[in-house]
């Protein structure tokens, strides 16, 4: 195996890797930015006032993480974070469709947050060893902030899911709402690890240390037990791996029993996002050259 050279600054990035790396960073940024927006939608209207404040902190963290990734991308392609966040057409955004759905009810928000935070946890761990040093450094800071997010989401998933009731009790209602939310979210969630065209290049360069497929499998393995205990939908079956060097480390592979909804990483987005984009960029578009 070739020695992987670390890349210490934006200027040091080999030309063939500039666009692929920028696209990768944009997808990380867009995921956080759009999810952060929907989390902030609970401000003032959360079911419990204390949660209002907690959700808002999580939203601010996410927008802050997005800002960091936008700044990294801007440093590579020569623009500003704000121009990236606000100045693109909808088809140029690269978030997974999971994060662009409307916030829904509380169960939907918690379900989505849980799926996203656990996936992001696996993704971030993989970037800690990235050959692109600015990314590795950013990620180690971001992970420390994500500790609180994971704590909070897991706590709420547990509260909503923890029921032994068979009849019409409040905790049975909660479990049912959570189940319904997960059923609608799973196809999108798989889209978080939609394989993308530059993967091979970035893997070779050590910027990525694991492929999308590998990350997906690690993620599913990390959450299977929780879903089992809580009797929540986990639409996967375990199959023997293909005779493939990468897969031989684990005894089985999770295969979805549902159709994943891909497309986000290619710029295909749902109606909720089109409406959000209109609103989000409305003031900016009044005059993109102006200072606000």
């Amino acid at each position, binding site marked *: 195996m070739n020695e992987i050279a670390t890349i210490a600054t934006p200027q040091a990035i080999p030309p063939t890797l500039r666009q692929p790396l920028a696209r990768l960073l944009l997808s990380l940024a867009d995921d956080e930015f759009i999810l952060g927006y929907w989390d902030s939608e609970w401000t003032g209207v959360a079911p419990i006032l204390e949660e209002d404040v907690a959700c808002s902190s999580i939203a601010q*963290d996410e927008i802050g993480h997005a800002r960091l990734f936008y700044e990294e991308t801007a440093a590579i392609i020569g623009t500003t974070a704000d121009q990236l966040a606000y100045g693109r057409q909808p088809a140029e955004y690269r978030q997974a469709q999971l994060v662009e759905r409307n916030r829904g009810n509380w169960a939907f928000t918690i379900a989505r947050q849980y799926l996203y935070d656990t996936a992001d946890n696996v993704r971030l761990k993989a970037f800690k060893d990235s050959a692109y040093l600015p990314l590795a450094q950013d990620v180690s800071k971001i992970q420390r*902030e994500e*500790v609180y997010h994971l704590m*909070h989401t897991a706590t709420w998933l547990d509260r909503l899911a923890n029921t032994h009731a068979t009849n019409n009790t409040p905790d049975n209602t909660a479990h049912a709402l959570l189940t319904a939310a997960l059923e609608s979210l799973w196809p999108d969630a798989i889209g978080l690890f939609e394989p993308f065209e530059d993967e091979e290049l970035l893997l070779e360069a050590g910027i990525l240390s694991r492929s999308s497929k590998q990350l997906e499998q690690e993620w599913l393995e990390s959450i299977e037990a929780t879903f089992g205990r809580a009797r929540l939908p986990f639409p996967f079956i375990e199959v023997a791996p293909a005779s493939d060097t990468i897969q031989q480390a684990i005894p089985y592979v999770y295969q979805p029993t549902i159709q994943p909804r891909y497309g986000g990483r290619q710029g295909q987005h749902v109606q909720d996002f089109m409406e959000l984009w209109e609103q989000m960029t409305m003031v900016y578009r009044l005059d993109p050259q102006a200072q606000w």
Partner: protein
Amino acid sequence: MQQASKGATLQDAGDDVFEVFQQDLKRDNAPHHGGNLRAPDTELAVHYAREFYGRRQESDRLWIIARTQLWEIQDTAYPVAHPLSEACYQQARYQQPQPDQTAHEQAVIFAVFGQQVAGKPMEWLYDLPAPLNLAEATQQLTTGRVLSDVPYPARLWLCPRESIIELNNTDLLHPPLDRSYRRLDGYNIRDKLRTARQRSSSEHNQTTEGVEFTTEQQRGQSS
């Protein structure tokens, strides 16, 4: 459980009240009372304490104490369950203490808090050195009050040391990324203000310290 009727009791919100003490190690010698909050259980109480008393990185540690574990002593030989918890809640008024109160028969180490100055928050004073039951702890404190030569706090709180939940996780209380957007020092308007003043005074050709010009005059002179 039926949906509770409107405006009824404490129970309809399904919460407990937790008192929160905070300490900034650079400025405070001891944790002082920050306020209180409601939470359905201790785990969420810790999350919320971080939000309400730590989201601006103003604390290095937080103490979270369920109000049911606190007793208040006010110039009496007997402790009262914090008058704002449970049955006392509706009255929220000082009640005659019950000398045969059976809570806390077992001996524990008690933490003692006091209000040193009227109007100021309660502050942690010390832990009683030996395990005592509640009656004994109260006795010790009220005897101390009576015999003390120095001014003694007018109000005391006790709680078992083991009931204090401490949060001191740096990732939660001092997360690493930039949060200057929510602090005064994250804003610097000096240069912008100078630009705005200059433009305004050159447009209106009058001193910006004037006090008695009317809006008609302003409108007449604007371009």
